[in-house]
């Protein structure tokens, strides 16, 4: 059956919705945080995996989105969704600005530049404690006042589906093709008529907007926001998630986020040693499976329907399957 993978994923999504209430509070929290990282990993995949722009500032945008929403809600009594939307808009604009400033940077230069940006954001939030609460944290208005986290679970699920659908549409469109061309060779892309500056800026803007969305949700879920959201530690964790899963495809990056988040909790008894384990897995991935551990399985999964279908589709292009 053509598109079998899409039906299987849709069925898994329906199961997650229908049986979500059976999760105990602890695992429900883990699932919500996994979905938060899923949005971040998917959007970072568009930036780093598709466009080849290895930014280390993605968590800083999540932090910026979270603080923007929390502060606007606190100061102006904005409805929380409006605060979150404002965070998304600000992150999109700042992301476009960073993308434009970084136009001539790539590889380690871009990584160091965005790391510098992330540290500026983190230190600013830490230092301006009269506004942000500094390291003590900023108490944020909760999105829901409910006895359980189930409404947050459904909201995180909705935001994840919305993010994945939007990012998938971009990745499978001509924009996605142009972003991959940029990743491969910017000069050749320009010679092919691709407006390199415009698409680099666009990739930064879109990815940063989704990071802001995830950050806004997180701020109004956890109840207290600290500058550590934008720290290098969490950025490294996000990179580990996307790289282990497979950063060049959105579903594998999200799978990596889910896998690492659940493993983090399942292996909690091993304390800091579990982070050593993730480091080793990362080393092994880079050495033996540079496309990520989940990518071969995902490709097999996608081809499953094509092989068994009545008219096998050719491995193809863009809309025919090389997207997510």
């Amino acid at each position, binding site marked *: 059956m053509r598109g079998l993978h899409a039906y299987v994923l849709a069925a898994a999504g329906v199961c997650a919705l229908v049986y979500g209430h059976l999760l105990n509070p602890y695992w429900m929290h883990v699932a919500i945080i996994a979905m938060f990282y899923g949005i971040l990993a998917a959007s970072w995949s568009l930036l780093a995996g598709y466009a080849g722009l290895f930014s280390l500032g993605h968590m800083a945008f999540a932090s910026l989105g979270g603080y923007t929403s929390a502060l606007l809600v606190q100061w102006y009594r904005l409805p929380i969704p409006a605060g979150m939307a404002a965070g998304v808009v600000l992150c999109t604009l700042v992301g476009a600005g960073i993308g434009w400033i970084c136009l001539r940077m790539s590889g380690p230069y871009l990584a160091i530049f965005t790391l510098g940006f992330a540290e500026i954001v983190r230190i600013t939030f830490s230092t301006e404690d009269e506004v942000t609460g500094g390291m003590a944290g900023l108490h944020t208005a909760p999105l829901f006042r409910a006895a359980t986290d189930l409404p947050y679970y459904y909201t995180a699920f909705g935001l994840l589906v919305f993010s994945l659908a939007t990012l998938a549409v971009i990745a499978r469109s001509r924009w996605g093709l142009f972003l*991959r061309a940029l990743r*491969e*060779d910017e*000069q050749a892309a*320009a*010679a092919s008529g*691709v407006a390199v500056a415009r698409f680099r800026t666009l990739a930064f803007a879109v990815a940063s907007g989704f990071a802001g969305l995830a950050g806004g949700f997180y701020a109004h879920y956890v109840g207290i926001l600290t500058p550590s959201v934008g720290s290098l530690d969490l950025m490294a964790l996000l990179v580990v998630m996307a790289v282990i899963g497979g950063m060049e495809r959105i579903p594998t990056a999200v799978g990596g986020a889910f896998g690492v988040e659940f493993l983090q909790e399942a292996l909690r008894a091993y304390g800091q040693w579990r982070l050593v384990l993730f480091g080793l897995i990362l080393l092994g991935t880079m050495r033996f499976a540079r496309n990520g551990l989940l990518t071969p399985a995902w490709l097999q999964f996608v081809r499953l329907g094509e092989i068994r279908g009545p008219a096998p589709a050719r491995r*193809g*292009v*863009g809309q025919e399957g090389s997207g997510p």
Partner: protein
Amino acid sequence: MTGPGVLVRGAGLVKRFGGIVAVDGVEVSVAEGDLIGLIGPNGSGKTTLVNLLTGHLPPDGGEVFLRGRRVTGAGAHILAALGVGRTFQLTQLFGRMTVLENMLVPGLTQPGSTWEGARQRARRYLEFLNLAHLENQYARNLSGGQQKLLELGRALMLEPTVLFLDEPFAGVHPRLRDELIGRIRDLHRSGRTFVVVDHDMDSILRLARRLIVLARGRTIADGPPDAVRADPAVLAAYAGS
């Protein structure tokens, strides 16, 4: 030369890299239907001149005109949209994209293009270049000669009025080189204009109707191949190199 029929003109082009003057006041014009061989010893400024004329480098001096319109400093993607195609000295494909995807990138930058339309055009050009059977292969897995053909195909997807080919025969197997020459001739007969840069004099002389010779960033000869080959300045430049 600014009259009708002139597609591309470089007027007094200058490009410096640090203390080196790579292109030094070059005047060049490419007329509609030309098939020009751009030759010169190593380091004579051929690739830099192509980069200036195709928008990949901004000149330090002089102007670039396309059909009489000043395009100096316009980006490469703008010139590509205006019908200036090119290939690179060292093949620059989208290695981890399939052959068909490589073709679709320029195809889909065209205003009003659709996936289906671009796919059909790409397949027509792949047939023409004998690459149709490789459309689902990653570009990086192709042989050197096939990569050169694919790069030509990718440039053709822009439906360019003028094509700059930078060393299209370098490292290409003789059989594929003959195929490439045949395809360039076919395309020229169909009305396209070419500027071909290469060291392979045999191939250039089989193709070109006009030769431009650069040495040390300056034009030292420009004319029919027979006349240029006999030019003492050209002989001296090559003997010197």
